[in-house]
Every structure is written in C-alpha cells, then in structure tokens.
C-alpha cells in the first residue's frame, strides 16, 4: 500500500530524516516510536504530503503521492493531528467537514448520504449523543474521538495519527486504541500512528518502527524492537523489560536515579 523509498527530508535545508526505507502492507497496524526530536512527526508529515521530500519518494499504491491530486489523496489518506480547535462548531458540523474531499464542484451542502454516514460513524465512535454540543466544550478524550470521527468521514484506506493518546487518561487511551484496532480488523483500515507510550505501542501495534536521530534504528514486531539493550541505547536511560502475563507482549518499566545508584547501574 505505502512505500517509503530512500526518503530524506526536513525543514529549512536541515535534514531531520535521512534515507528512510520501509513498506507498509494493506491492513497493517504500525506504530512509529522514538525519542523526542527523532523525526517521528516529520515522517508522518512526509507521508501525508505536508512536507516535500528533499530526496526520495513516498509511494501510495505505486504512485508518488506528489503526483496524486490532493483531493483524490484526501479520499485515501486521512490525518489526525494535535492542532488546537478554534472554532465554535457543533460536533456534527465538525465531523461533516470530513466529507469535503467527496464534495462535487459547486456542491455546498452535505447530501443525505453524508448525513447518514455521519450518524453511522458517530455511533460507531460513541459520540452520537454529543452531536449537538459545541466542540470547544468537550473534554480532551471526547475531542480526540471527534477528530478521529472527522478523519473516518473521509473514508480513507490509510489513517495517520500523531500521538492520538497524548494527555488522555488510561480509560480514553484504551477506548481510542481499541476503536482503531476494531476498525483495522473489521474494515481493513491501515493504521500508522506516532506513539510516545511504548507500552501502548507494544500492546496494540503489530509492527514498530523505531526512529533515532532521523534514521530507522530498528523495525519489527514489538518483542523484537522493545528489547532493553535497544531501548537503553536509543533513549539513553535504564529500563526493565518484562512480559504482560495476559497478552504476552513486552512491557517496559523505568528505573529512577536513586534505584539505579542503589543497584550499581548508572
């Protein structure tokens, strides 16, 4: 579905990403992880055609995304980012903005089909009961569900999410990721997300791409990437890796300075 071919890009001639290569199959559920400033969000921007590559290409279904018409691309790739909401729309109106790429020339109003779809997806993401509320009045977790619903209204094949669980309590973290997982399983939606929480990444993602200093450091299944030697090397901190007794996925524990000194670690 997606192929990143020798991608080098950045801002103002400074390269934040160098020689990135990877392929993404249909229906994959992938997490991009890495320390702050490693280039995760830059990668997401390059995939979503917000940042032009200095070198290399990003191919969607075999076609360079910069050769695909913007509107056409918006019907295939949707993005959920962390932009603050500054409008006073109701949830329903906000969600309906996601239909814009599907509007015909000189179409100004949503069709019956659009409204029915909004109803359906809002009930799927469990926000139908808020549909008449102003988006500015919603909590962080509810807002994130609204953003996700708006992106799903584009009917994308691939959804890109930039830290969808940032600033959320564990209930909402699980609600959002469970929902994405369900969509991935049931509708075949391909999911790529940047995650800071390595334990969530481990539990939910089939494959992880670990980025360090603008390059791919390691890619593979969570148990292949989340090894303490790799994490300590990249994140420059001491961690303990264990296994979740229920899911058998690896999980990480950090070790505070005091404990490190007591046990003789640096």
């Amino acid at each position, binding site marked *: 579905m997606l192929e990143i071919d020798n991608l080098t890009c950045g801002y103002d001639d400074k390269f934040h990403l160098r020689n990135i290569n990877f392929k993404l199959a249909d229906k994959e559920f992938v997490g991009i992880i890495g320390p702050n400033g490693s280039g995760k969000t830059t990668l997401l921007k390059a995939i979503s055609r*917000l940042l032009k590559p200095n070198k290399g290409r990003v191919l969607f279904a075999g076609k360079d995304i910069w050769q695909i018409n913007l509107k056409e691309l*918006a019907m295939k790739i949707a*993005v959920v980012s962390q932009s603050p*909401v*500054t*409008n006073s729309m109701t949830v329903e109106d906000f969600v309906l903005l996601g239909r*814009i790429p599907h509007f015909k020339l000189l179409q100004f109003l949503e069709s*019956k089909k659009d409204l029915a779809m909004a109803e359906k997806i809002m009930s799927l993401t469990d926000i139908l009961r808020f549909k008449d509320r102003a988006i500015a009045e919603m909590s962080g977790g509810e807002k994130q569900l609204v953003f996700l619903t708006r992106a799903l209204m584009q009917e994308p094949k691939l959804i890109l999410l930039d830290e969808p669980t940032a600033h959320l309590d564990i209930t909402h973290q699980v609600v959002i990721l469970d929902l994405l997982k369900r969509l991935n399983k049931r509708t075949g939606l391909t999911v790529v997300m940047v995650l800071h929480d390595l334990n969530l990444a481990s539990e939910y993602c089939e494959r992880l791409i670990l980025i360090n200093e603008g390059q791919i450091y390691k890619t593979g299944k969570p148990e292949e990437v989340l090894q303490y030697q790799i994490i300590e090397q990249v994140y420059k901190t001491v961690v303990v890796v264990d296994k979740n007794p229920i899911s058998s996925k690896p999980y990480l524990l950090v070790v505070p300075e005091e404990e490190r000194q007591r046990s003789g670690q640096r």
Partner: protein
Amino acid sequence: MKNKLLNWFIWVAVLGGILLGTCILSLAIGSSEISFKKIIPLLLEGKGTAEYSILFNLRLPRIILGFAIGGALSLAGVMLQGMFRNPLVEPYTLGISGGAALGVCLNIVLRLNHTLGILSLPISGFIGALTVILLVYFLTLRKGLLKVQGLLLTGVMISFICSSLLMFIMAVSRAEDLHGIVFWIMGSLEEPNWLLIKAAVWVSLLGLFLSYLFSLHLNAFSLGEDEAKSLGINTERIKSLLFIFSSLLTGLSVSICGVIGFVGLVIPHFMRLLVGGDHRLLLISSYLGGAIFLILCDTFARTIISPLELPVGVITGILGGILFIYALTKKQLVLGEK
C-alpha cells in the same frame, strides 16, 4: 439538514429585515426631517420637489454606497480572519488603506485631479492600494508560502511608512489642499458620481458571490492549515486567491470612500458570535451586518451635529471600538470561540 437550512434562512431574513429597516430610517432622518409616511408618496409622484431631491439624490446614493462598501469591507475581514485563523488580521492592518491614502494624497498635492478630472482621485487611491497589496504579498512570500505573522508584520510596517509619508506631505502641502486630504483620510460616503456607486455595488456583490465558492475552504481552514491540506485543499493557492481578492475589495472601498476603519474587524467578530463559525452562513450575514453598520454610522455622521457632518470613519472607529471592548469584557472573544 432541513433544520440547518431553516436556521440559515431565518438569520438571513432577520438581517435582511434589519437592513431594510435601517435603509428606511436613514432615508427619513437628516437635517430636514421627512416622515416615514411621506416616503412612498414622494417616490411615486414627488419628482421635481425639493424633498424628492433630498431623498433620492442626496440620501439614497449614500445608503446604496454604505450597503456596498460596508458589505465589501466586512466580507474582506471574514475572509482574511478565516484563512489566517487570526482575529487581528483585517483589511487595514495589512497596510492597504495607507497605500490608498498615500495615492490620493499625492494626487491632491500634485494637482493631478485638476488636469485628469475628479475620477482620477479614486483611481490613484486604487493604484496606491494595489501597490501595497503586491508589495506586502511578494515581501511576505517565502518559498511559495504565505505566513500570517510575516504578512501582519509587513503590513503594519508598510502602514507606518505610508502614514509617515502622508504626514510629511501634509506638513509641506498648501492649506487649500490640506482640507481635501484630511476629509478623504477620515472617510465619507458622499459620492456624487453614480458610475462609481454602481461600480461599487456590482464589485461588492460579485465579491459576495465569489466568496461563496470558497466557503467550504474557509470552513476547512478553521481546522488549521495542515488539516485543510489533508482534506484535499490546495491551501497556498486558496490563500493567495483570497488575499488578493479581499485586498481588491478593500482597495476599491478605500479608493471610493476613503479610510473607513473597524468595519472589517468588528463586524465579522460579532457575526461569528451570533451565527457561529460556518462560513456558508457567516459570509452572507457578515455582508449584511457590515452594510447595516455602515449605513447606521453614516446616518449618525450626518445627523449628530447637523447641519454639519462628521467623517463616517470617525463614527465607525468610536462606535466599533466601544462595541468591541464591550464584547471583550462580556465574552471571550477569541476567533470563533464562544
């Protein structure tokens, strides 16, 4: 959807009704009072009387011009604030009025209007506005990108340069030219040339029509520029088009009526508070709101110290400023936030 359309229709009908009421009020009020009852008989059979002449040769052109210019300025404000997601951007912060004022001022001082005719005044204003628009646009454009901070700063700086040049010209100009310059800078809806009034109406209505082609784009811009892009919108192209478009509307207004501030800043804010952030309703309601506000301000301007007349720019500034501060203290008036 039916409910939404009904809601939109009600808002437009209410604002249209208020506009009509304002027009009738403005026709009737003035240094010579003409009762409401007399307006229709005068219209039908009063041709040739002094009252007919006051109504339809003096007051009506001002009302029509107020409608066109108020609407155009407010529309330009909605478009600029919408695409830059910044409540401070308005036609005048971008230096357009400064350029137009400088153009007209040069015309007066160099006495070009004596040789080229009175129409050369709006034309030189328009050339001044256009020069600033292009200057701000190309000075701000970096690698094909138009950034709002750069645009604002360049606009404000060019505005300062223009007003300093203006002051310099005023300081060295003859006393008889000074009056013309001052009156023009403060703005007035008094325009004896029907051709210009008609041109203003057509351009302003065309502006309203064209702005609708971008109503959904403006809605998408409210999500943020990157989000608008990921909804399939060519943000750079749309921004350039909307910028040039709203600048031309402002340039036209300034070149005909002089500097009338605050309409493009205050009215879009109020309308956003009243009708919400959907540009499909916001554009038309701001247009109507701008028209109502300017016609009302002009009525004040010509009646408050009647038979003398105040420049309408003074009234829009004072009234608009007070209303704005009131709204700020009452509600959190961040762009679009209720």
